[in-house]
């Protein structure tokens, strides 16, 4: 609650050696945090030769705060967080700020918080791509007046709400216009794939098998739906969406079981974030050229925003070309031929 | 000896699932007297005691206490009437010490706080009166006591209170020679103070030494309740093992539940329906 933004950086930096703390949110909702973000951030920090400490809160708010306390105690000069929710996020950012530590919101904006910078994909845009993708696949298949089922993310995950806002913004008008029908709408606790399978199976039972398209919030949930569709020999006939461009999701797309996924170039995001973090840790200032409005905190946060990309069978190769996943991971066994068909080399 | 019995049971039936353990049992206990309840293993003595103390609900039958009908549904009801019981399966809390067990449910307090010194003193006095010499400390958990020591604690617990009826289910089974003598003396003393005492024992010497009356159970039926002076040692043993002896006991061995005759000169006992 004391000191202004600009002052805090310089005062903090001349006393301390630059060190960056990063708190990742969990390791189970998505493979990206431990599999991609940690790797790319570490590479960047090592290259810049700054001290760093990357931790994962495992979806536990209390652990999240504990880690933040430890990092501040441990002498970080810049703190980059992916918040678990706005409340703890704000508490951590405020605490850091009050001790003169520079702050960055990574991937998720802490509403009402005090981060100096924000680096992210637009989560609502992700949802929008999913909605548009599903509509496209349904049109491609020529389904008339399709019945849609939602497999939303964890009910306690704010990101899941943002994704839903995104695909709702595309699909809701179609529901209202009676072009599409929403026949089932369930959240999957803790993004748990096993529960997702049961939930989807019951959606199918409830509707007597009349589901023509599945909006699954990520590839894991999508795969759960596909496993049930396979059991009923409906795979490939019912389009399923996804997110994260996981090897499994890409394979499902190549096999024609999944219609699309959303690829977020995490490497880009991590690169942008690490550059900012290194600057902040050294007490420098950076221009981002962009801002994002924080409606709760009533301020414009300097931001770096990256755009997510929809991946269909045609452009799976782009993900591999980007190095996000390797060809070895995707084109194993029976998929080698599919890869070749899709022009992946 | 007063005319109305302190406790009178009439027509008590009790089954556990398909097994009927007590059949139409009548029983009385008089103030100032020791009533010995005898019977073979598994005759139903302990079950009868547990019915009186409210541990087991009865299937049928009446309870009269001081002449008034009462219903006893829990040990708390029994305690409220002034009934204290030493159970055969002692029912001590192994995780508590001797003093804590003796005052369980009726702790002495000063204000909100437990009055440990008073309880410790009272416990020490009561135990000293029961010839306990080998207990190392009153603050020992009862789980570390020997069989006889446990039994002594249970007895001491029951006689600490001002009650009207004390029931002791085989209280001397695990006791040594001296301790047994002390307990029998205590039993007599309680009766002389005007309490009604019910003593269950398999030891005929003890029974004849202290009891005023003897009640015999045979396979869940009360076959006789007579004054001790009116019966001989061997008659009691016959009642226990065969259910009848001369004109006492079941009219015919193996007859129905109504076929009991209490050949007693005592007007208040043997209230057979």
């Amino acid at each position, binding site marked *: 609650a004391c000191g202004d933004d600009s002052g805090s950086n310089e005062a903090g930096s001349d006393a301390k050696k630059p060190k960056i703390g990063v708190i990742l949110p969990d*390791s*189970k909702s*998505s*493979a*990206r945090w*431990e*599999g991609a973000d*940690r790797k790319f951030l570490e590479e960047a920090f090592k290259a810049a030769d700054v001290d760093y400490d990357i931790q994962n809160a495992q979806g536990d708010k209390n652990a999240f705060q504990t880690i933040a306390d430890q990092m501040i105690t441990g002498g970080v000069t810049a703190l980059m967080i992916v918040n678990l929710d706005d409340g703890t996020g704000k508490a951590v950012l405020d605490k850091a700020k009050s001790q003169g530590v520079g702050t960055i919101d990574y991937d998720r904006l802490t509403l009402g918080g005090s981060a100096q910078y924000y680096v992210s994909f637009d989560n609502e845009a992700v949802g929008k791509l999913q909605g548009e993708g599903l509509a496209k696949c349904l049109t491609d298949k020529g389904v008339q007046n399709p019945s849609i089922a939602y497999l939303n993310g964890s*009910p306690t995950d704010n990101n899941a709400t943002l994704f839903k806002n995104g695909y709702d913004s595309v699909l809701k008008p179609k529901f209202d216009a009676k072009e599409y029908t929403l026949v*089932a*709408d*369930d*959240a999957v*606790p*803790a993004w*748990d*794939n*096993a*529960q997702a*399978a*049961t*939930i989807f*199976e*019951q*959606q*199918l*039972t*409830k509707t*007597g*098998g009349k589901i023509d398209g599945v909006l699954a919030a990520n*590839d*894991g949930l999508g*795969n*759960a739906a*596909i*496993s049930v569709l*396979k059991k*009923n*020999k*409906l795979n490939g*006939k019912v389009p399923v969406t996804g997110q994260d461009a*996981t*090897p*499994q999701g890409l394979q499902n797309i190549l096999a024609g079981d999944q219609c699309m996924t959303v690829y977020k170039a995490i490497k880009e995001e991590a690169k942008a974030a690490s550059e900012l973090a290194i600057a902040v840790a050294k007490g420098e200032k950076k221009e981002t050229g962009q801002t994002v409005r924080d409606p709760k905190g009533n301020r414009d946060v300097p931001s770096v925003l990256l755009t997510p990309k929809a991946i269909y069978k045609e452009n799976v190769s782009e993900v591999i070309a980007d190095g996000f996943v390797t060809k070895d991971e995707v084109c*194993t*066994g*029976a998929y080698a031929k599919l890869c070749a068909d899709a022009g992946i080399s | 000896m007063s005319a109305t019995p302190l406790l009178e049971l009439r027509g008590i039936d009790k089954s*556990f*699932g*398909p097994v009927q353990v007590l059949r139409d049992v009548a029983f009385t206990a008089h103030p100032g007297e020791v009533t010995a309840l005898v019977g073979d293993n598994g005759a139903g003595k302990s079950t009868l005691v547990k019915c009186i103390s409210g*541990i*087991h609900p009865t299937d049928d039958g009446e309870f009269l206490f001081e002449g008034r009908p009462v219903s006893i549904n829990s040990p708390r009801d029994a305690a409220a009437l002034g009934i204290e019981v030493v159970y055969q399966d002692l029912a001590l809390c192994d995780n508590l010490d001797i003093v804590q067990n003796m005052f369980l449910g009726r702790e002495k307090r000063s204000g909100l706080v437990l009055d440990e010194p008073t309880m410790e003193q009272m416990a020490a006095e009561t135990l000293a009166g029961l010839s306990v010499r080998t207990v190392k400390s009153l603050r020992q958990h009862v789980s570390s006591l020997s069989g006889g020591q446990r039994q002594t604690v249970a007895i001491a617990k029951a006689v600490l209170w001002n009650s009207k009826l004390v029931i002791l289910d085989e209280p001397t089974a695990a006791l040594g020679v001296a301790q047994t003598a002390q307990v029998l003396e205590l039993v007599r003393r309680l009766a002389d103070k005007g309490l009604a005492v019910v003593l269950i024992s398999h*030891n*005929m010497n003890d029974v004849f030494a202290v009891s005023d009356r003897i009640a015999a159970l045979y396979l869940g039926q009360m076959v006789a309740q007579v004054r001790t002076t009116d019966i001989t*040692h*061997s008659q009691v*043993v*016959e009642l226990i*093992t*065969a259910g009848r002896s001369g004109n006492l006991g079941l009219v015919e061995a193996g007859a129905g539940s109504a076929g009991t005759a209490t050949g007693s000169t005592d007007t208040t006992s043997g209230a057979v329906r």
Partner: protein
Amino acid sequence: MTTTAVKKEGPAPVAPAPTVGNHIRDYVSRVRGGDIGALPAVLGLVVLCTVFAVMRPSFLTAGNFANLFTQGAAVTLIAMGLVFVLLLGEIDLSAGFASGVCAAILANVATVLGYPWYVAVLAAIATGVVIGTTLGVLVAKIGIPSFVVTLAGFLAFQGIVLMLMDDGANISIRDQTLVAIANRNLPPVLGWSLAAAAVAGYAAVQLLRYRNRAARGLLTDPITVVAARIGALALILGVAVYILNLERSRNVLFTSLKGVPIVVPIIAILLVLWTFVLQRTSYGRHVYAVGGNSEAARRAGINVDRIRISVFVICSSMAAVGGIVAASRANSVDPNTGGSNVLLYAVGAAVIGGTSLFGGKGRVLDAVLGGAVVAVIDNGMGLMGYSSGVKYVVTGVVLLLAASVDALSRRRSAAAGTR
């Protein structure tokens, strides 16, 4: 002194003669007396199914009936193993993630390393055995409370799954045999033959037992009761197989979908196996003894530590089987496999079925019945379409209702003093 007593050879303990009437009367008063075995759980199940069937007619379809088995299979299998641990009065909090670790091994061996399915299955079960041995030794030999040991396991195995999953990525199961376990069905004929074999086997065992006891002049159940039991089993199996053999494809043009799901015989065989072990072998007897009074068991010369270790081995191995089924059903393994509510549901299944957390009381059948209750609740709730908040609340309330039916019908047990 006591030597003056009358000496008399008492007759051997007797019981009423074995007629049908007596048997029924006996059963009724046993039920009245609270000794009711599986009745409460079955009652709870019937109430649940009725409610769901009334509220959502789709609950009663053949398709949904078949789904029930695959949905509940993993939890039921884990619960079956947990019964052993609970019988000793111990707990295994790590069973859920142990199944996750085993599933991850399966996926790695089958998909990443590309070995055939049986190697992968063996590797998964071997992993379960190793896990169980470790837990058991820590509990029995070092003497750390099982809650703490398995809480540590709960944490560590989570980490191991993550590490095996290469920090969070899913691994697909592509082997068709593995996928079939939870997703394919037996040919209708095979279903019928297995059911017939089961009934015949049961009848043989029952009749042999009858003959054996009768020949020695021991008390037996009346032959009509034995026959009635065999008939009841035949009826239940017949109806179940009949329903499962109905066509349940959404669209017969695409595919035909009928037959008993493959997991059903797997569960049935394990149920028979473990019931046999618990009821008919001295090992099982010792498990009950250690659970009822471990000091008495020790004094009877039973190697209590070995029994204690063995139940953890059984529990973790069954968790491995559960993990394999879960992996098969999901066609993939992810870091959440065996996580979230799997453990609580599995323990809950065993407890709802009538297994005591204090040891000494429980059967493997309990886990299956309790697992059915949990699966029916999950299945029925999935048809209701509540928002997630409401869904949690209703699930909790329904669970409570099922358990109340159970508790109230067990009530007399306490009143009769046979607790």
